[in-house]
């Protein structure tokens, strides 16, 4: 039996997943990305391999994904998180589908065709609205640990709306509502609802809607609100937070070709390479 691993180096967290040839998930791990991305990747992989009760030498191939995918020295290949979330979701959910991936730094909507292949994607603008960072900001305003925000939102009794597009303006709007005596649970849910609105305006959500990423994984109330907004069920696949890592492990198993990189001319001046 051969085993494969994927490491998803995200802006906040680095996730790893270990699978077998049948794509069964044997172990996963999540660690903080911090400032040393290579170390975070190594740490996440070691933990996932340990959770799978394997030794590192049993891993036939490891691929990377996420914004730090280029900072994983031991990766045999890489794919974008757009590809890996689509690849992972297509394994669990037959197409056509639309993946809504909410991460700490960005939000993505990925359309998948009936054959399981990715058709198109849309990412949020250069702005924290519609991303996990927005919830961090709101949790701070509500003086609540981010890990308890969902619990707080579940106590909501009044459907409040935040009208602003902007994280900063939404924060000040929140202050006005606090001054008006609104309950923290209602405010937490208003923040979720605001985030959902930002996501559904990114693209038309066709076919089966699938929620992935750490934000949906840790804030199940958001899934319920998305279902309410869409008027239909939303699928949360196994390991939503580790879906990118799982997709990278599938890419490693399938030997999906990396988009080949050749030595480009590079930067010859002060125009930093992307």
């Amino acid at each position, binding site marked *: 039996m051969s085993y494969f691993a994927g490491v998803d180096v995200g802006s906040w967290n680095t996730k790893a997943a270990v699978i077998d040839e049948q794509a069964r998930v044997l172990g996963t791990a999540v660690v903080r990305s911090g400032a040393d991305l290579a170390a975070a990747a190594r740490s996440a992989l070691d933990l996932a391999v340990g959770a799978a009760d394997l030794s590192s030498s049993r891993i036939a191939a490891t691929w990377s994904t996420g914004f730090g995918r280029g900072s994983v020295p031991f990766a045999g290949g890489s794919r974008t998180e757009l590809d890996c979330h689509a690849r992972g979701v297509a394994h669990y959910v037959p197409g056509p589908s639309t993946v809504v991936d909410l991460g700490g730094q960005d939000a993505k909507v990925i359309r998948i065709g009936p054959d399981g292949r990715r058709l198109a*994607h849309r*990412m949020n603008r250069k702005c924290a609205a519609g991303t996990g960072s927005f919830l961090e900001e709101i949790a701070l305003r509500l003086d609540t640990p981010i890990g308890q925000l969902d619990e707080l939102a579940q106590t909501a009794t009044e459907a409040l709306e935040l009208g602003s597009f902007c994280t900063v303006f939404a924060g000040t709007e929140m202050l006005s509502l606090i001054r008006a005596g609104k309950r923290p649970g209602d405010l937490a849910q208003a923040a979720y609802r605001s985030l959902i609105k930002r996501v559904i305006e990114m693209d038309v959500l066709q076919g089966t809607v699938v929620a992935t990423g750490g934000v949906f994984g840790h804030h199940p109330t958001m899934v319920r609100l998305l279902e309410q907004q869409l008027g239909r069920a939303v699928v949360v696949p196994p390991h939503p937070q580790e879906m990118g890592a799982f997709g990278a492990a599938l890419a490693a198993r399938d030997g999906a070709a990396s*988009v080949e990189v*050749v030595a*480009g001319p590079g*930067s010859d001046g002060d*125009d930093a*390479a992307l």
Partner: protein
Amino acid sequence: MTQLASAAALKSVMANYFSALGQAARDRSAPVAWCTSVGPAELLRALGFQVFFPENHAAMLGASRRANHVMPRAHALGYSQDICSYLTSDIGAFRAGETPLATYGLTEVPKADVLVFNTNQCRDVRDWFEWYGRRWGVPVVGVRSPRYVDEVREADVDGVTVQLEALVAPLEQVAGRRLDPTALSEAVRLSRRLSDLWGACLDTATHRPAPLTFFDGTVHMGPAVVLRGAPEACDYYEVLLEELESRAGARHAAIPGEAFRVFWDGMPIWGRLRALGSLFEEFHTAVVASTYCNSWVFAALDPAEPFRSMARASLELFIVRSEEPKERYLERMARFYQVDGLIFHDCRTCPNNSNTRYGMPQRLGDRLGLPTLVLDGDVNDLRCFSDEQARTNVEGFVELLADRGATARGSR
């Protein structure tokens, strides 16, 4: 970006152009007119003006990554972050006493004796020119063009023709001479010749592999922008065309191992031009054509009918048109250049040259059966651009093209 031997000739043509401008401004040997990029340059040349194009200047500020340093000085005057960042870069640089023209020996932008706009592209160009007009106390004249044009109607051409003809008297007054109709015809003839040559250069990218990319085009289009109606620009594009045809014949690729071909709609992102060029090269993807570079192809120009043909050319321009003719144009371009996908730049401060906000990428993608990508950014304001997001967006798009290619090969 591609190293073309013609680059030396380009440098020389541009240096001579700026040098002549600088000299005219210094010793008053010729009147200086500022002109919008697709304004009536031929008329100005025929009247003996040295013609300066502030949009070219703003692009230089963007490419040299000075724009974000100087824009706050324009914002402080009430010119918003949400309006044209060419305008705010240029006015900001003026207030800061900065100019990238220092490279050509000019210590400041050449002071205008008159500023001439055409609002066919946007209103911002007029606001921009009026700021300088007020500051220097010089006339600001121009064409108030129809916009969002469906089919170009004779009535629209009539209206712009009348406005162009009405410019003659005030411009003659500034120039201190009468317009010679023969000189105008000659300027239009040269402009048309330049346009044909530039168009032929861009058409060489229909070859596989393409001998030049959009990123090369944005550099080599300089003379097509600033030297319309001048013979030296034609000379330059004859040299460039010969080189490109020779490269195409020898299958010399601008992007080694060209695997994918894509089209770029919208403005360049000047401050990231080289980085984006390198990024696409990493992924063997040639951005073979663009609406931007093709915007300086004016097929309507006709020396036998100078005013009317200038009017028609200014109205047929892509940026002036409504969604339907724009979509027809992009469909033609996608087929002509045989592209695998289209990239639309949503330029934050240039809504008039962003074709992403009324559903066009989705409609065109569906109709052509091609993937489309919307890249958020800006022509000059790098606060609106994220390197990380752009990289993931582009890489994810190329992965998608590669997967489609693999599927197509598998089904053959």
